[in-house]
Structure formats: structure tokens, C-alpha cells
């Protein structure tokens, strides 16, 4: 009997040890899942770097790269200093009251997101908190993505420090406010209006795109972009293949970006014990992402090929495909995602031409691809996804997605992008910190900003030609 009892005790101990091991394995898997989104999102930056440098003329190629690299470098510490705090501090709006889920408000943010005092324990290595840094890293990379989106639009004429100030305003403040309001279970846009933007079409892409538009209004076009009669010229970049490959790298990185929008299960910080969730706490599967992202990429490429035949616009169409469906990648049916992405690919170039015909020189189409298509995606979900619960909860208690709610979200995201972009760039303009002097712009920004040459043995730039020869 005693022997049997001893065997039983040993067996129980063995099972407990095995259970503990499984728990540790799940913990480490969940942390690794999220951690791996960080290097994947850095591929987005490799892509933006290649894309921007390829779209620049020979005389500006390195300065465009320097600008992009510096934006990344400044985004990380500023997001650490205050961006992370803003995200947790203001989901319910100003003055930062706590929300119903108990994971927001200034008091909560003060306790977990400052790099000093007691809160610093969650902002550095801590054996009892192994996830905060991983979440921080992924969000910092979201922030850096917004800066990269704006970066391409303003190439070949912006001052470096002025650009960094704009990048920090966008990446560590403007989009973070949008995320707090519309990408947090306590966000007032979510709680009051049922706004759903799973893959951040509005709160990352549209905010960044329209922030860029606000800057472009004050920055003005590159010398030679527009003729005296207002017609536009096409200023070719020095390396279209580099630009196209860069765009493809952005697509690769977006799998990491969207992976980071998924919260793994089974942890203290998870929404569910047994299934992954969106940032809103609604269920999602990686299968949904695989189906819908791939169909959206394809739809965007096919739609833009139909009328442009241009590899730059085709790969931009791939991005537009993802962005136009990003809000509902968790719940779209793949064929529907394909059709929405296809329509985004079709309207992409006409939308870019619309801006260009109004004197806006967006060198890479960032306002259109990210801004216009971002809002298009937010509104599309309101049309197709109306009635879906935006949060967990019983029927009638949880807010649901609606067209009106998505339109309200789209308007808020537009304003959170355009207004800070316009105001801060206007201040920089008044201080003489926005645009490089005319002589330096004509000579080439690499001569002014970079003690190296991109292609020292090459000749001059490709000729500037009319943007719309048939007109």
C-alpha cells in the first residue's frame, strides 16, 4: 500500500512537472511569437530604405537614405521616452481617465510606462516581467513605420533636423494618440463607436499618409516638378528596380506587422486561454491572415496592372491591397478581400494624379497609398462588416462595427494626421528649418549632407519628362 502511495505521489509530481514545463513552453512561445515580429518589421524599413533611395535622383540618393535611417534611430528612444506612455495614458481621451478594462489612463501609464521611479521596473530587464519589452519593441516598430511612410513623400528637398522633428511628432505622438483611441480595448472610438481597424489601415497608414500631406503643403514641390502653367513633370528616380524590390520587402515586413496585431493565447496578458485574439480582444486566426493578406496582395497588383502596367504602381498596388483590407483582415472572406484590394489597385493611380494635379509633389505616392487607401479601407469595413461585435461581451452590450462608426474613425484618423503635420511643418517653415536652400537643392543634397558618394563612377540624372504626356 505504502509503495503504491509512493508511486502515486511520484506520478503526480511527474505530471505536475510536465504541466509546468508545458506552461513555460507556452510562455516562451508566446513571447517569441511577438518578439519575432520586431525583426520582421525591420524588413519594412529595409524596404522603405531601398524604395526611397531608388526613387531619388543620383544627386540625392544617400541623403534620402540617411534621412530614413535617422528617422528609425530617433523613433525608438522617443517612443521609449513618451510614446509608450501616451498609448496607455489616453485611450479614453483627455484628461486620461481609466477605461473599463483597467489597462488605461494616466495613472496606469504612470505605473508602467515611464523610464524612471517604480514604473522603470517595467521598462527594463526584469525576470518577473518578460513581455513588456517585447510589446514595446513591436509598438516602437509600428511607430517607425509611420515615420518611414512620411519619409518617402518629402525626399529631395527637406532639411534633416526638421524632418526628424516631424518624424518624432508623427511616430511618437500623432499615431500613438490614434492607436490609443482606436486600437485599444478601452479606446473611446472603440467603446463609443465600435471602430474596428485590426491591421491599422487608418491609425497607422492614414494618419501617416495625411500627416505627410500636411507637411507637403508647407514644404512645396521639388524644383522642376511643376511647369509655369501648372502641369506636372515626372522626375524619375535613379533606380526603379531598387524601388520595386524595396516595395516587395515592405510586403514581406507587413506579414510581421500584421502578426504583431495578434495576441497569442494562454498567458496572463492574453485575452484567451485557448485562442489568439486581436488587440480588441476579439478572436482571430493566423489562417485568416494568410488567406486574406495573400489574396489582397494579389488583388492590388492585378488592379493596378490593369491600367498602369508600371512595376512601381503594381507593387504600390500590392501595398494598397493590404492596406485597403487591413481593417478587417480578421473577418473578411478571402475572395471579398481580393475584390476590395483589386478596386484599391484600380483607384490608386487616379487618386495620386488627383493630388499631383493640385500641385502636391508626393515623390512616392505615399499620401495616396497610405492615406487615401487607408481611409478607403476603414470605410470599406463599415460597409461589409457592419454588425460584427468590436469587442468581447454579450449581445447588446459589446459595441458593433457600423458604417457611421467607421466614417467617424476615418475622420478622426485624417485629422490626427493632417493637423499635426501641417502645424508642426508650418512652425518649422517659419523657423527656416523645413526646406533646404534652392542652391543646395539644385546641386544635390548628397553634396551638402553626406561625405560619401552613392555611385562615384556614374553620370548625371535621367531627364525630367512630362508626367502626363497625353494631356
Amino acid at each position, binding site marked *: 500500500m505504502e509503495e503504491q502511495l509512493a508511486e502515486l505521489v511520484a506520478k503526480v509530481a511527474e505530471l505536475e512537472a510536465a504541466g509546468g514545463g508545458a506552461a513555460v513552453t507556452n510562455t516562451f512561445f508566446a513571447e517569441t511569437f511577438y518578439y519575432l515580429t520586431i525583426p520582421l518589421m525591420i524588413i519594412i524599413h529595409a524596404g522603405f530604405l531601398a524604395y526611397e533611395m531608388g526613387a531619388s535622383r543620383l544627386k540625392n540618393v544617400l541623403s534620402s537614405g540617411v534621412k530614413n535611417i535617422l528617422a528609425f534611430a530617433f523613433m525608438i528612444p522617443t517612443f521609449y521616452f513618451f510614446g509608450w506612455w501616451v498609448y496607455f495614458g489616453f485611450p479614453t481621451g483627455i484628461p486620461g481617465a481609466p477605461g473599463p478594462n483597467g489597462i488605461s489612463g494616466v495613472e496606469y501609464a504612470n505605473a508602467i510606462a515611464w523610464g524612471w521611479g517604480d514604473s522603470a521596473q517595467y521598462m527594463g530587464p526584469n525576470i518577473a516581467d518578460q513581455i513588456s519589452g517585447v510589446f514595446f519593441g513591436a509598438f516602437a516598430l509600428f511607430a517607425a513605420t509611420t515615420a518611414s511612410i512620411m519619409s518617402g513623400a518629402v525626399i529631395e528637398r527637406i532639411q534633416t533636423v526638421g524632418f526628424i522633428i516631424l518624424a518624432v511628432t508623427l511616430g511618437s505622438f500623432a499615431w500613438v494618440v490614434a492607436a490609443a483611441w482606436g486600437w485599444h480595448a478601452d479606446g473611446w472610438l472603440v467603446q463609443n463607436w465600435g471602430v474596428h481597424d485590426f491591421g491599422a489601415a487608418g491609425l497607422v497608414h492614414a494618419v501617416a499618409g495625411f500627416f505627410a500631406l500636411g507637411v507637403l503643403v508647407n514644404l512645396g514641390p521639388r524644383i522642376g516638378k511643376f511647369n509655369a502653367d501648372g502641369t506636372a513633370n515626372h522626375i524619375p528616380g535613379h533606380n526603379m528596380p531598387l524601388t520595386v524590390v524595396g516595395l516587395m520587402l515592405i510586403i514581406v515586413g507587413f506579414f510581421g506587422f500584421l502578426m504583431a496585431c495578434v495576441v497569442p493565447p494562454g498567458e496572463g496578458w492574453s485575452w484567451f486561454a485557448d485562442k489568439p485574439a486581436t488587440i480588441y480582444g*476579439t*478572436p482571430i486566426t493566423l489562417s*485568416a491572415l494568410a488567406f486574406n493578406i495573400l*489574396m489582397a496582395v494579389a*488583388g492590388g497588383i*492585378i488592379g493596378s*496592372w*490593369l491600367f498602369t502596367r508600371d512595376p512601381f504602381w503594381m507593387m504600390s498596388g500590392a501595398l494598397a491591397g493590404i492596406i485597403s483590407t487591413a481593417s*478587417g483582415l480578421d*473577418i*473578411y*472572406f478571402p*475572395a*471579398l478581400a*481580393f*475584390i476590395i484590394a*483589386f478596386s484599391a489597385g484600380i483607384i490608386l493611380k487616379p487618386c495620386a494624379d488627383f493630388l499631383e494635379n493640385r500641385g502636391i509633389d508626393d515623390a512616392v505616392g505615399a499620401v495616396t497609398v497610405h492615406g487615401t487607401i487607408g481611409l478607403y479601407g476603414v470605410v470599406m469595413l463599415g460597409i*461589409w*462588416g*457592419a*454588425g*460584427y*461585435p468590436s469587442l*468581447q*461581451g*454579450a*449581445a*447588446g452590450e*459589446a459595441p*458593433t462595427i457600423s458604417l457611421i462608426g467607421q466614417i467617424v474613425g476615418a475622420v478622426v484618423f485624417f485629422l490626427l494626421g493632417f493637423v499635426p503635420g501641417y502645424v508642426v511643418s508650418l512652425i518649422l517653415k517659419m523657423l527656416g528649418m523645413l526646406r533646404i536652400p534652392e542652391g543646395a537643392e539644385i546641386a544635390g543634397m548628397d553634396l551638402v549632407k553626406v561625405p560619401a558618394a552613392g555611385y562615384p563612377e556614374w553620370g548625371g540624372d535621367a531627364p525630367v519628362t512630362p508626367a502626363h504626356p497625353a494631356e
Partner: protein
Amino acid sequence: MFPYPEASWDVVDGAMFMGWGTSLPGMTTVIAMVICVAVLVIGQRSEAAKAKKFDK
């Protein structure tokens, strides 16, 4: 378009995409197929027309 009678995730235990249980998935699949074929037809026509201009 929520495919369950109650607007709550608590009742979802299967397919959760838009239009599940209706004709929407089938219709969108057919439309997507038609788009692919139509784009190829249009693409072939316009490319052939452009290529003809280079015939001597």
C-alpha cells in the same frame, strides 16, 4: 453581416467570416475568378495592340 443570430463572439464556434451561411462567399469567389480572366483578356488585347505598332 455577422453570421450568427446574436452579435456576440461568445456564440461563435466555427466560421467567422463575412457572409458565412449566405451566397456571398460563392458570389465573391466567382467575381474574383471573372476579374482574373477579364484582366488577362484586356491585358492581352492591349499588349498585342501596342506590339503591333513595332511591326515593320
